[in-house]
């Protein structure tokens, strides 16, 4: 029993030691969803100027690359209307719902 207790303590310590911060961070995905719908969907729907674009259009790494490097260079002005936090929020939303993110296991 004594040894079991020590072993358990060690296991818990190991688990906490191994714990690292979550990957995507800093953004509020619920706010990001709102901002995405309000701003991006204006152009990015079927038949509109920007063409259809959903979170599933890119992988998580591709969304990160878009936000960190591309920064909407085809229309750079668009980018400037957002604050840094707005962009983080949208990045979080798109990252969390990207093509390679976990998806609900439902039909339809």
């Amino acid at each position, binding site marked *: 029993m004594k040894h079991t207790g020590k072993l358990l303590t060690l296991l818990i310590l190991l688990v906490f030691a191994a*714990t690292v911060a979550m990957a995507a961070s800093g953004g509020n995905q619920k706010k990001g969803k709102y901002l995405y719908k309000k701003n991006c969907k204006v152009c990015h729907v079927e038949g509109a100027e920007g063409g259809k674009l959903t979170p599933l259009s890119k992988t998580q790494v591709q969304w990160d690359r878009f936000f960190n490097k591309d920064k909407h260079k085809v229309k750079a002005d668009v980018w400037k209307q957002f604050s840094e936090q707005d962009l983080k929020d949208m990045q979080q939303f798109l990252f969390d719902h990207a093509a390679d993110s976990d998806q609900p*296991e*439902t039909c*339809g």
Partner: protein
Amino acid sequence: MRRLFIMLAAILIAIPTGGFAADDLQLQIQELQKQIDEMATRVDSAEKKTATDRINWYGDFRNKADTLHYQDVTFNPGIQVNMTDFFMKVGGGALGSFAAFNPATPAAGLDPAINPTALDNMFNNLYLSNPNLYANLNAAMGGFDPTNPATFPGVMPFPLGTKSTYDINNDILYTTRLRLGMKAKVADNVNFSGRLLMYKNWGDSTGSKVFDSWNSYTMDGTDGGNTTGDWVRVERAYFDWNEIGGSNFYLSIGRRPSAYGPPSQLREDELRGGTPTGHLVHFNFDGITAGYKLSELTGIEGQTVRFCYGQGYESELGNGELFNEISTKDTHLGGINFDVVNTGTHFVQMTAFRAMDVNDGFKGVIAFPSQYAEIFAPTMNKDLQKFPNFNFVTRVQPSTVIGDINLAAIGYVLETEGGFNAFVSGAMTQAEPNGKAGMFGGLLSDAVFEAKLSQDGTEVIMAPVRATSDETQEGYSVYAGVKFPAPSGSVGLEYNYGSKYWIPFTQAQDDMINSKLATRGHAGEAYYIVNINPNMFLKLGGIYYDYEYTGSGSPVGTPLKVKDVQAGTAYSMLPVVDTAWDAYASITVKF
């Protein structure tokens, strides 16, 4: 002089540099061309790989340790017997006559000089196994007057063994669950989804369990949530045909995503794992869903209505249909699932469906408990005593349709950005028995047995003839919980209560003791999830069950007060658990 020297040096440096620059540029272009060619080759192979990878795979892998403890388990076997019929038959000679056994002097036993009749053997065995019961029966028979209904005993419980009560401790049980998810794109608006599953106890791949509870049945609808062995099963496989004809309709056919639905995804620490509410359904159904994304019309986010149809039991093919003796029917299910709103923060869901032509069990495989041979099969029991640790594996199928069940639930889940989650769900079930019964009973009612002679006339056997009741029975349940952030992860607290006649389809919930949501009584759970990294978590927790009524999760048999079984005034052919707890630790990796 100095100025001249500097100019000369500059010219000397510039001339070769200028010469090298053109060559270098050429070299760089060549190098870049090489790189482009190499990249093109690599992209080609990546493109080829992507084009030929028809299925995208993902999955999760869970190893879990449980310690299971059952308190005051009572085994008090008995059946409901039509004693009026029995006395009539004994008195009228329908069961033969006494020859080697004199009921008035049971202690004398069988006369060795005379071949015993079926009735001799039955009464002699009864006296030997339970002299008190024999005395009571004999006294009742003495006062029985076939012409006077006032002396008719009617249907009475008939004990089939001696009551025993005990605790059970399974100190450690290890399990491994591997789930392999599949996605494939068939066309722009058609997708295939599937999930393969291996779920096993460590050191066990027999695929059959000794039948000591309804949890131990290896069968179609619940294999996904019960350990079966080291083979991979298809837990779900279906296609979605979306935006049919440009509309908001979709059609989905196949083995359904009908387990781990809301709000049970919170305790699984995953996204919504199934379509119908998890409060009512954790069962692997095969069927069809026709859905309509109402949100496009109403503007209410996530609003979707789904009409679901499924088959829970195939009554003919494979059941010996060519012998033409089948009296069961296919079990069909039909209903509606309505996601009223699903914003990611607020989720409201309503589910209602009807299970039609429910049978007295399912097709499945069990290992036959030797305890039943002792009670019901004296001839077989003689041989089985030579093989005390052998349980023959047998296929079981139901014998009769016992009624219909209506089920409905409404639930709300709150998931905040800060990680605070809460849910509450209310559900009810309504069983409509038809008064028929198989050997395990009728719909939420027991079987009434009547005595008859075996085909060769050498043994009195008991056969189920009807159910004890055909009254509609309603049950209800509440399920509530919270999950909130804690250091390195989250903590969850859940509680559910089920009433006497509560009968949901949650038997594929993978709790080791029993589906906690099927509990007729109280169940509470606490857990702590530690996120090791985004794709790996540790879960520590425990579930406590306090059963008030017997038969949780079984549509067959009258729910009896656990206290009555413990007191010996009620009988059950399966051991009855009073309270139980399961403490567990699991580590899950997702990939």
